[in-house]
């Protein structure tokens, strides 16, 4: 035989790919890092399931058992928390890389799968926050679910399905646990696989086609080597963060006691800021949906040209890049305002 038959891991990788796009400085490995973080979240999450109890009376207590009593439980919980927050950051950076280098060109369906994954990542982070059931997160749950109530027509019915009753309570915690642990996680896993498959089916990593004929190519061993280094560095950063910075843990939730300060999770601070000055349905439902829709139709409306693929800040995509950066700046500004209060 002319070549070695690859194992499953190598088989998932293309036999060769253009050398230019195999370099770390082209994609920064962000997609792969997201996948790695997702796997870490799965493993650490399953381990936490051996102790965590999703009941109103025991949830906060079981989180304390993991953190203070189970051997290395503190590290496990910190890793789960930090992998989650890192993942939100990394997928947004990945989206930025794809937009700014025209990677969506000719691959619009995979862009949509990616947007779905973004939504799933944020929802997984939010449902995970809620499971902690401490004073900070319980109020985020109350306001978040009440936002659903403001939707005209289907709002109240949707609220009751989400909450599992007339008001936030035991049914809500159990449902959010089911969503977080399997409902959303399973869909995210399937979509991740589909997203990765589509990259290969759409012709491999998005790459520029220079006019001068075939370009030099790198082999899969070289790609896997680059990925491994990136994975080790990511894990080092994750473990380092988990050792030195603890995941937050507030007093156990009590929905009959007012709090002095109630902060949304950091990735929704921008929505909380909007809610301070605009009507609830507009600020909490319409605007986030509009932002999400705008980003989703980027390759359908703002940049339909297929030229400029694989080129950073390519000319045909300037409108899309500009709008994307404008959204990023606006959301960051609102988030900063929320943090500095």
């Amino acid at each position: 035989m002319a070549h070695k038959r690859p194992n499953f891991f190598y088989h998932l990788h293309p036999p060769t790919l253009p050398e230019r796009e195999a370099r770390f400085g082209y994609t920064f490995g962000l997609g792969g890092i997201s996948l790695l973080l997702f796997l870490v979240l799965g493993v650490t999450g399953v381990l936490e399931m051996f102790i965590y109890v999703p009941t109103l009376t025991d949830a906060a207590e079981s989180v304390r058992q993991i953190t203070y009593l189970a051997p290395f439980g503190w590290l496990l919980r910190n890793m789960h928390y930090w992998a989650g927050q890192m993942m939100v950051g990394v997928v947004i950076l990945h989206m930025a890389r794809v937009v700014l280098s025209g990677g969506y060109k000719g691959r619009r369906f995979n862009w949509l799968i990616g947007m779905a994954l973004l939504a799933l990542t944020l929802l997984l982070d939010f449902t995970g926050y809620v499971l902690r059931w401490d004073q900070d997160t319980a109020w985020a749950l109350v306001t978040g679910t009440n936002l659903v109530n403001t939707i005209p027509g289907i709002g109240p019915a949707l609220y009751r399905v989400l909450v599992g009753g007339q008001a936030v309570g035991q049914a809500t915690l159990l449902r959010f646990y089911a969503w977080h642990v399997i409902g959303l996680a399973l869909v995210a896993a399937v979509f991740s696989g589909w997203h990765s498959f589509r990259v290969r089916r759409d012709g491999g990593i998005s790459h520029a086609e220079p006019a001068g004929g075939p370009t030099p190519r790198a082999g899969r061993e070289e790609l896997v080597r680059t990925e491994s280094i990136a994975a080790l560095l990511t894990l080092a950063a994750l473990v380092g963060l988990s050792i030195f910075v603890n995941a937050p843990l507030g007093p156990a939730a009590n929905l009959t006691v007012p709090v002095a300060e109630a902060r949304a999770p950091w990735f929704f601070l921008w929505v909380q800021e909007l809610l301070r000055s605009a009507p609830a349905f507009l600020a909490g439902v319409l605007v986030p949906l509009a932002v999400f829709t705008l980003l989703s139709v980027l390759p359908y409306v703002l940049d339909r040209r297929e030229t400029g693929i694989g080129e950073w800040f390519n000319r045909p995509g300037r409108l899309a890049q500009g709008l994307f950066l404008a959204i990023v700046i606006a959301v960051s500004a609102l988030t900063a305002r929320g943090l500095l209060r």
Partner: protein
Amino acid sequence: MTDLNERSADGRGPGPEVRPTIVGLPPHPDRREFLAWLTRGSLVAISALAIGQVARFFSYEPAGEAPSVIPVGKPETYTADTLTYVGAARSYIGRDSGGLYAIDAVCTHLGCLVEHSIGDGFACPCHGSRFAADGQVQNGPASKALRHLALDVSPDGQVVVNRSQPVAPETRLAANS
């Protein structure tokens, strides 16, 4: 008058005026096309029914709604011109010259519990809504005033708050201090 002996453009049946239009079914279907359409249609119909039943499953609400009439102690425990927060009823109980009153602590914006500011009025920690001492909106994203809730005295002499019965802001429960 349509001549049914006339063939249609594809040569398979009566002329165009007599052709039925059914979604997904080609004109003049042969047996194979018809059976394929029947199969697809059945799968779509069954899937729709299944999804409908799953939605009904999600709509189940376990029993156990919180009681709406909550005892909050004897009238004597509430002194004049002070507001007391009672967690079990999620309300502020106050007393003035007319008697006792209860203000719902649930913010009318998105459901957080408002805090009683030192001095006067209430402030919501979630999005900054501010209310006057009588519940009227002073500031912030909330647009409706805090509700006043019905008070009554139970047979064993305790004041009870009825969270499902809002009343006018002037309403007072005459009860001795």
